[in-house]
Structures are given as C-alpha cells and as structure tokens.
C-alpha cells in the first residue's frame, strides 16, 4: 500500500503514514473548518492498513500543538480505529505535549482513559 503524506498548513496538521519507514505521525496544528473532510484520507488509510497489516507492531505519534473541537472528534475516531487495530497487532499511541501545555496534556489523559490500549503521554521540550 502507498504511504500517505500531507504537508502542514496554517490550519491543518502534517500527516505521515508510512509502513515502510515505520512513521505514523500527526503533528503541528489542526483547526480546519471542515475537519471531517480533512481526516477522511487518514481514516481510509488506517482502514486499508488494518484489513491486512503489513507489520506486526506500530507506534503512532500525536505531536500536536493545538486542535479545535471539530478535530477533537476526528482524532477520537482515529484513536478508536487504532484501538481496534490493537486487537490484531501491537499498537502504541504516543501522545506528545510541550512542557507546560496543560490543555494538551489533559487531552492526552482524557483519550488514554477512554481507550483500552498502550498509551504513552510524553512531555517534550
């Protein structure tokens, strides 16, 4: 399957989903007006990946500085798909937040409580 790469803009995050290099990452900021439309290719990619996982272990990184509420729901969907995938292969979610960013840390905590899977919350400089 093909890798997915979406470049960051002022309002949308960078997305890297690549099973060859082993990079699975959503970073920068996410505040699109139409979050559903933006995340659709991500859902498709994970769906396809999950049908026949080409690797038996992944580490999925969220390194966001900000997301709006419309994106929150889409991120929840991504996480639920990863939870499902973790029944087939080893999946670890790594939720990064910048030192002192209480909001981003509590978002990570919230998600980690909702999910039954490996979930690491990491402070970064």
């Amino acid at each position, binding site marked *: 399957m093909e890798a997915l790469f979406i470049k960051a803009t002022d309002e949308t995050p960078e997305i890297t989903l690549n099973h060859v290099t082993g990079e699975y990452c959503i970073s920068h900021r996410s505040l699109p007006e139409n*979050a559903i439309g933006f995340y659709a290719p991500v859902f498709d990619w994970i769906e396809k990946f999950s049908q026949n996982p080409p690797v038996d272990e992944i580490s999925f990184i969220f390194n966001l500085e900000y997301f*709006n509420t*419309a994106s929150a*729901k889409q991120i929840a969907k991504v996480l639920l798909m990863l939870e499902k995938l973790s029944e087939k292969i080893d999946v670890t979610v790594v939720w990064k937040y910048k030192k*002192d960013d209480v909001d981003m840390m509590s978002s990570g905590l*919230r998600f980690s409580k909702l999910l039954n899977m490996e979930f690491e919350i990491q402070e970064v400089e």
Partner: protein
Amino acid sequence: MHLEEKSLEQLTNGFKLFEGMQKDNLGYIYRGLFTQNITDSILALTENNLESVGESSKVKKRVFSIMVECLQNVTRHQTPESVEVVEPEQSGIFVIQTKNNAYQITSGNVVEKKAIPHLKQLLEKINGLEKDALKEYYKQILEDGSISDKGGAGLGLIEMARKSGNKLYYDFKDINKEISYFYLHTAISKELEEQIESVDLNNIKHLHDIVNKENIMLIFNGCLNQDSLINLLSIIEGQSIGAVDIKKKLFNIMVEMLQNIVKHGAKKDENMVGNPAIFFISQVGNNYILNTGNYIESHIVDTLSEKLDHVNSLEGDELDNFYTRRLLNFDIDNSKEAGLGIIDLRIKSGNKILYNFETVNEKISFISMQVKI
C-alpha cells in the same frame, strides 16, 4: 472599573458597536505594536474582505498599496529615538473603514514634537501638487538619494497621495512635552475618480481615546470566513502577550468562538462570502475579554440559550464528563457541528460564558457572546 462591570458593559455595547459599524459594512481597528508579521496579516485580512464583498480589482489594488505604505510608515516610526519604552497607550493604531462610498484609511503613531514642522511642510507640499507634479517630485527625491536612516524621505507619503488621488489629511495630538500622536488619513473612493472633499479626523481621535481607555487590542467588523479567521489569529499570535499559556488560551478560545460564527452565523445578504460579525479583544489587568457578535437564525435562539445555560451550570468533573460524552457521540458529527465548541470554551476559559440576544426581525437575531480568560 471593576472587571465584572466592565465586561457586562462591553457585552451590551457589542450590538451597538456592530449596528453602528455594520452600516459602514467593513471596519477594523488594530492597536499595538506593528511588526512585519502583523502587518502582513492585516493586509491579508483586508484582501480577503475586499474579495468577500466583491470589490473591483482596481479599487482592491489601490486600497492595498495605500495600506502597505501606511502600515510601513507606522512600523518605521512607531518608536521615536528619544523614547526608550513605548507605553501601551502610546502604541500605534491602524483603522480601515468604509464610509461615504469610500475606503477610509487612518494610521496613528507617536512622533517627536521636533519632527512636526518638517512633517507638516512635507505634507503641505505634497497636498499642493497636482498629479504630474507629484510624479516629478517623486522622481526628484529618488534621484537626490536623500533617504533618511529610517528608510523614508516622504516617498511613502507621495505614493499614498498618488494612489489615493486624494489629499492626505493629518492631525497631531499632544501626549507630553516630547511627543505627539500623528494621525494620517486618506480615502479611496469606490468610484475611483471621485474626490473626497473633507475629513473629520476628530472621529478617529475620539475612537483612539476609546480603544486606549478600554485597552482594546483589536476590533474586527466584516465578513468572517475560515481565511479571515486565520488572519485574525496570526494578528493575535504576533502580539507580545506576556505568558505563553495565556497567549495559547487566547488563541484556542478565539478559534472556537470564531469558528462558531463561520459555521452557525447567519447573513442578511446571501451573496456575501462569510458571515458578518464583530469581534473585539480587550485587556483588563491580567484578564483578556473576548467578545463576538453575529446574526443567527431566530428559530435556534431557544435551543442555543438552553445549551449555554446548561454548560454554564456545570462545574469541574460534570463539565469534563459532558465533554467526554459529546466527544464520543458520533451521532453529532458533521461538517457543521461536533457539539463540543461551547463546552470547550467553558472548560478552557474556566469562566461562564456571558451571552445576550437581540431580536432583529422574525427570521434573524443577534447574539453577543463574551468569554473571559
């Protein structure tokens, strides 16, 4: 004034301010430090708004180039050499409004009093020259090479006069014995060749007094869409706001408040790209007060006020649980709505959301909202 009183006063003033400005269709005021980034964002914001109202490309170009000169003037001269620290009440101001079928552009910045006679002389000279003579004068200065260390020699002023086809109106106002405000105004008629006869700069002086007194950093009145939202955000991001976490909160709350309007706002004119709205931020002590005002369809007023009251009545864990339930409720999940915006505003600000409705007519109402951080 006490924070509570001040914020309530602002909430009710929102509608009046909007009604007053709405007739003029567009207007915003920025007050603060001018940097390249902030200047770029103000330009982009204007471009977006001129586009939204379908302005002709000729007028757009003129407004744009005059703004560039005007903003560069403020940026260059905002810190006079004799002034070590610019006090907040000495920050520059930039105002664009549409009035009398013209775009009215005004800037205000601090100048040293000793520079005033030369400045006056220059402005009078420019105002006394006709189109061709202006062009000659421009060339002459370029050839002389007498460019000042701040990079200007009145070229910007000449450009403004040439592009606007109008006089440069100006005024000064005492700050202390060393410095004054310098107000510079010009107008671009929508009917290109029309001359604007006279301008009352007292209005602008008065407005400047108000925004100084209320400590308002930004007033935006215009069409709000995702693009103008992004530009407004970068204006705020470019501000030197103390603590990083406060700045971040301000950013987060702005996104939710403004995206609410982009998604749920109503408009009177269907041809507009974006929803008419007013947005202003002021600072009271260590607090920031964010106000929005926009039209909504009258039939959603009841549901919306119930929702706001409900969210306001929740505290701590209840609020958190409500957020989580909504987050996982995928029945409410479409391009218009995630059902989380208001809860998020309440959680992130740590304050209740103040609101007020005014009926405009059967179909349309006006909502003012205020969030304090």
